[in-house]
């Protein structure tokens, strides 16, 4: 026989043993992982329960009890506090009012803030959880001074740390963080867009100038996010930038978002550019977005143009025009009613649809929360 099929028994034995060994090891691993996790959960729950009884005293609002609880927490040694800290941090994000302020002062008294800033600076791959936790804590405390070190940590090699830092920067709300945050949408060490976008919204109008500049960034994602945020928080001055993006951005996605943002800002300066987009031979998606934006913008002057758009051969343009007319109020509604009776078949159908849905919604509108709930209850009984 040839060597191909002649397997010496020794080889088989080795293969059997190593496979069995691996399988056995994996079995042990599963069991160990489960036991360890249970043990850790148990321990954490016990610690938390203890911590909570103290922290709840803070929530009583009774001065003497609050003071007692604070002195007890202040007396904890470092190890005990370290075990307690995660609970306090997580509670911090869940409450507001007096309870929150007393929690924040607990941290100040213990000098934890300083400690966290050291944690932020700790290096190395194995300390990434420590850095991320430190960033999250500084964010939860709303520590304004921490914004510069947090911006530095945005460059961290660990994604978890970058995410924690970006969120913390949003919570702190220092407008200067806008530019570094926007920078994390491009390049190699990125942060997911949703995290960056939420943080930018929290920075508020102060970030406007950096956002306007970002609209000419070379990376489409940066432009898209900047345009989107400007539509929500942007000052009036952003309108010209958004119009320029609507007219000439290289990316269609950015132009669509610019149309939406212009609509949301509600500036009359946006009407003419939006109409131009609808008339020009642009893609249906962009034209449809512009038609919808006219309704958001609330420009009564656009009523006749929107009425004509009901005849547009592109379904989504005509449909959005109908929706926009409805949002324009009485003048738009009058136009829709007119089209239902006099208009061509397609236009009339679009008009009829939005009017029908509007009347259903109007009938449904709650007059009082409890009354609506009561009606719902009655319905379910039937």
């Amino acid at each position, binding site marked *: 026989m040839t060597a191909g099929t002649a397997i010496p028994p020794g080889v088989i034995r080795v293969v059997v043993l190593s496979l069995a060994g691996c399988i056995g090891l994996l079995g042990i691993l599963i069991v160990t992982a489960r036991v360890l996790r249970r043990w850790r959960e148990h321990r954490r729950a016990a610690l938390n329960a203890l911590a909570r009884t103290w922290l*709840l005293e803070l*929530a009583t609002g009774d001065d003497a009890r609050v003071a007692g609880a604070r002195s007890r927490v202040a007396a904890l040694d470092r190890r005990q506090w370290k075990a307690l800290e995660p609970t306090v941090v997580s509670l911090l994000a*869940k409450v*507001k009012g007096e309870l929150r302020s007393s929690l924040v002062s607990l941290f100040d008294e213990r000098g934890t803030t300083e400690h966290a800033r050291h944690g932020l600076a700790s290096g190395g791959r194995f300390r990434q959880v420590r850095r991320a936790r430190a960033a999250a804590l500084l964010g939860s405390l709303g520590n304004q001074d921490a914004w510069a070190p947090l911006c530095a940590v945005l460059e961290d090699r660990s994604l978890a740390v970058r995410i924690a830092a970006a969120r913390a920067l949003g919570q702190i709300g220092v407008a200067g963080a806008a530019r570094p945050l926007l920078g994390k949408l491009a390049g190699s060490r990125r942060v997911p867009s949703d995290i960056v976008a939420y943080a930018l919204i929290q920075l508020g109008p102060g970030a406007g100038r950096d956002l306007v500049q970002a609209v000419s960034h070379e990376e489409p994602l940066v432009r898209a996010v900047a345009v989107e945020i400007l539509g929500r928080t942007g000052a009036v001055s952003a309108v010209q930038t958004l119009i320029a993006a609507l007219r000439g951005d290289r990316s269609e996605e950015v132009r669509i978002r610019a149309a939406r943002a212009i609509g949301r800002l509600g500036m009359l300066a946006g009407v003419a550019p939006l109409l131009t987009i609808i008339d020009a031979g642009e893609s249906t998606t962009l034209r449809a977005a512009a038609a919808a934006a006219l309704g958001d913008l609330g420009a009564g002057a656009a009523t006749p143009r929107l009425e004509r758009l009901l005849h547009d051969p592109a379904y989504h343009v005509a449909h959005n025009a109908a929706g926009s007319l409805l949002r324009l109020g009485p003048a738009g509604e009058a136009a829709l009613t007119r089209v239902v009776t006099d208009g061509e078949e397609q236009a009339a159908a679009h008009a009829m649809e939005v009017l029908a849905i509007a009347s259903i919604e109007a009938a449904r509108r709650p007059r009082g929360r*409890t009354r609506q*709930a009561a009606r*719902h209850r009655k319905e379910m009984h039937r």
Partner: protein
Amino acid sequence: MVTVLLAEDDADIRDLVTFKLRQQGYEVRAFEDGLSALASARDEMPDLALLDITMPGMSGLDVCRELRADPATADVPIILLTARAQESDIETGFSVGADDYVVKPFSPRELVSRVQAVLARIQA
């Protein structure tokens, strides 16, 4: 005694709310998941249900629609707990029959006054 049913998976908030409501003289039945809260409500009707929307398995919205679907529990006033800036939760909440909502993070004092207000409105 007025009984409040509480479903909240977050132990911190559960204990905090329980503590605060008990301090105000309510009896609180607290559960960490929607299913056991629902079972408890069916067992003995509470005067008010306080349901967290975000729970694994059955969410607060699910418990709400189940309570409303059963004639025995359909009239329980329901307050939903929702995380900040989520109008959609509130809309969905009303569409499944909730009476009111409290947005997290909340101050314990605010929560108590909402509970009192809903109870007063129902009795009126």
